[in-house]
């Protein structure tokens, strides 16, 4: 491509494209945005907790990262704080600074900046291509695995097991089962159970807003317990004050210590950047296939990159597109970025209006919400449909297994590899029909001819060096240098031995 054209294309992708204005259905977008804001507040606070930063940073992420991602993108995808990105940020920084200390906060911001810059680099290199190789089976495997992870990580908060820091969820289950009476706080369990059960019950009636109703129900029950038993008697953990500022602008610190840190975490930053993009693009691809056909994947990559690059300036951490919030928004009729933009504004309004109430929101109710979100991500019928196909079933199971047991980062890698392996296996299948026209043998080849698939044809051709063969390549979409060399070698061998190999050409070598 010409440099000028390349630059023009980049410019087009980098500038906000507001052409969606013309097809906006304001009422639907408004409703989707408001419900999205209600949904994101408990999540943002929880994810801030996952990152190890104060709750308001999660809200800043929902507001600013969400707003920028919607403004620069052109899809109804809802961005903002994200489970996997949050967990990885904390896992990375925890090795270099004490969770919660000021230097820890600065490191998280610096790491977020790196993630954003790497995503912008991926955008410049047209990296969205890679994500085409995600098979739908792998995507559903990741989605389901993330659901399982959400549920198990929420279990800790729901049971009030907070001092346990075990690596694997089955250890938690085991410990909780063995020393139930000592470890588990019955008031926490009651609050979380009310949240989950009311959510599941209300899901039938209000398939979109049930999470809001559930958190209100759990909040009321938890607060009642707190008021009756008191803070010491109940040992219920509360959310605490959410001190939000309207414009939390700051410049990230960059001292030699930060440079050392940045150098050390480049691999993690790349992993987080790819992971965030992978999730966003998986969502975007899904939207493009179903609802928004003019969705531009590269533009979404830029939107994610620029939102995360600017995140530290707004005192917050990197995010990505959100599976669950996007599906709620789209379910409520959002078709344009307006829903995301409205959601960002509504978060600010709610946080200021509900501040005092949020202070006394019991954490187990938030844990219950996470369980509900996790359950929502495990879609039985999607999975059942997948399991009908053998290959899809295997990719799905492998992905699900790695995500739940080895974590999302490993899981995504394995999902790419599994998708690619099966894609390659599918591509390297070559059929050839052999027929005879008198003396001449006619071979019609169907499939891609390349280094991985060319062997069987080669063996067949070499078996009869003196035969006359017509090779029909009209149904070969692709033929690589290895295959080309093999054909030339056979032609040479044949002419030396008195045979012939004619081509019916279609494919270019």
């Amino acid at each position, binding site marked *: 491509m010409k440099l000028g054209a390349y630059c023009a294309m980049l410019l087009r992708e980098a500038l906000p494209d507001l052409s969606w204005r013309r097809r906006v259905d304001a009422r639907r977008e408004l409703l989707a945005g408001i419900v999205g804001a209600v949904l994101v507040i408990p999540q943002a606070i929880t994810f801030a907790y996952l990152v190890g930063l104060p709750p308001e940073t999660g809200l800043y992420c929902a507001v600013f990262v969400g707003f920028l991602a919607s403004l620069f993108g052109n899809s109804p995808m809802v961005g903002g704080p994200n489970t996997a990105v949050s967990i990885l940020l904390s896992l990375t920084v925890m090795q270099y600074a004490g*969770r919660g200390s000021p230097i820890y906060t600065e490191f998280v911001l610096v790491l977020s900046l790196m993630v954003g810059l790497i995503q912008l680099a991926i955008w410049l290199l047209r990296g969205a291509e890679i994500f085409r190789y995600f098979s739908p089976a792998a995507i559903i495997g990741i989605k389901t695995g993330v659901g399982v992870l959400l549920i198990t990580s929420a279990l800790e908060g729901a049971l009030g097991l907070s001092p346990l820091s075990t690596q694997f969820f089955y250890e938690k289950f085991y410990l909780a089962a063995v020393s139930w009476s000592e470890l588990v706080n019955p008031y926490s369990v009651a609050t979380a159970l009310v949240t989950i059960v009311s959510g599941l019950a209300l899901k039938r009636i209000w398939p979109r807003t049930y999470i809001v109703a559930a958190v209100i129900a759990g909040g009321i029950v938890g607060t009642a317990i707190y008021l009756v038993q*008191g*803070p010491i008697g109940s040992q219920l953990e509360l959310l605490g004050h959410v001190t939000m500022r309207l414009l939390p602008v700051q410049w990230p610190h960059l001292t*030699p210590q930060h440079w*050392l840190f940045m150098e050390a975490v480049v691999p993690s930053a790349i992993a987080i950047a790819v992971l965030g993009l992978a999730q966003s693009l998986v969502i975007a691809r899904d939207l493009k296939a179903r609802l928004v056909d003019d969705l531009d994947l590269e533009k979404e990559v830029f939107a994610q990159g620029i939102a995360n690059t600017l995140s530290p300036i707004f005192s917050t951490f990197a995010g990505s597109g959100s599976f669950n919030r996007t599906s709620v928004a789209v379910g409520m009729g959002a078709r344009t970025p307006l829903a995301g933009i409205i959601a960002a504004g509504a978060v600010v309004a709610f946080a200021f209006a509900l501040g005092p109430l949020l202070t006394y929101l019991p954490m187990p109710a938030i844990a219950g919400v996470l369980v509900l979100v996790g359950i929502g991500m495990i879609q039985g019928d999607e999975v059942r449909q997948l399991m009908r196909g053998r290959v899809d079933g295997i990719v799905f199971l492998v992905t699900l297994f790695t995500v739940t047991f080895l974590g999302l980062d490993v899981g995504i890698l394995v999902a790419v590899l599994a998708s690619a392996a099966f894609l390659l296996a599918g591509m390297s299948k070559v059929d050839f029909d052999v027929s005879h026209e008198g003396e001449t043998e006619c071979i019609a080849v169907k499939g891609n001819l390349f280094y991985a698939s060319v062997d069987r044809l080669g063996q067949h051709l070499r078996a009869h060096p003196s035969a006359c063969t017509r090779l029909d390549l009209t149904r070969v979409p692709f033929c690589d240098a290895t295959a080309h060399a093999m054909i030339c070698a056979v032609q040479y061998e044949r002419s030396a031995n008195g045979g012939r190999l004619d081509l019916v050409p279609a494919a270019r070598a």
Partner: protein
Amino acid sequence: MRADIMRTTIVTTLAIAALLASAAAMAARPAIDELKSRVVLDDYEANVLFGYNIVMETNKYAARYAGNGLNCTSCHLKGGTQPDGFPLNVAGVYPKWRSKNGVRNGIELRIRDCFLYSLNGVMPPPEAPEVQAVAAYIHYLSEGEVIGKPPAGWGVPTLPDTGADPNPPRGATVYARSCTPCHGKDGRGTAAAPPLWGPDSYNAGAGLNNVQRAAGFIWANMPVGNERSLTHQEALDVAAFLHLQLRPFDPREGGLKKLAERVYHRISTWMGKAER
């Protein structure tokens, strides 16, 4: 010439030794200011610094759990380094064995208590980063203290028996005379000093809401700049005066439970009267 060289060598050696010694002392316990200026902090040092910041400016660094106009250093004077002013070099005294539930009460519980009562805030969970950081800072302050032995100047002095009961009305005059310039006529505090009562001060469950302890604190540390100028009796009187003022209720027992108990009590006395 020879002697000169000898002398220079000795002086240099001594200087180096002194430098090394001071470096070793620094390595043992660097000053907070030195930590602040350091380029690279390890996990412990970062937490110590964070803990120090919380103690000095609780409402900024631990806003999530703080709830009033006080900071830890309002009572744990000079960042917890003032003997007789609730110093925080107390790591050696914890954990304490509490026979009631057979659970060891660690320093975390005391920190969380002060958030709930003295700061009239939200009780943080034990593993909250803020609690861990303050614990690290307390550990840092306690370096060199003996385990199991209270540090010198622990808590506040216990005032001897004056022979007279604390007298709140006399305390009011002491307050008007010595305390109003800084803490304000209405006790709501000024730019110079934190509030002593009212909605923005410690609640009724706080450790300072105890006449003896408050008297010891006031006698040893107040008025700032003129400490130990009050007589023991004046300190007790003004403490009793403070104790009578309105402040947020004790959150220990849930408000609803208390209300229910009171309603039940009222109803049962009515019922008793009706029966009689």
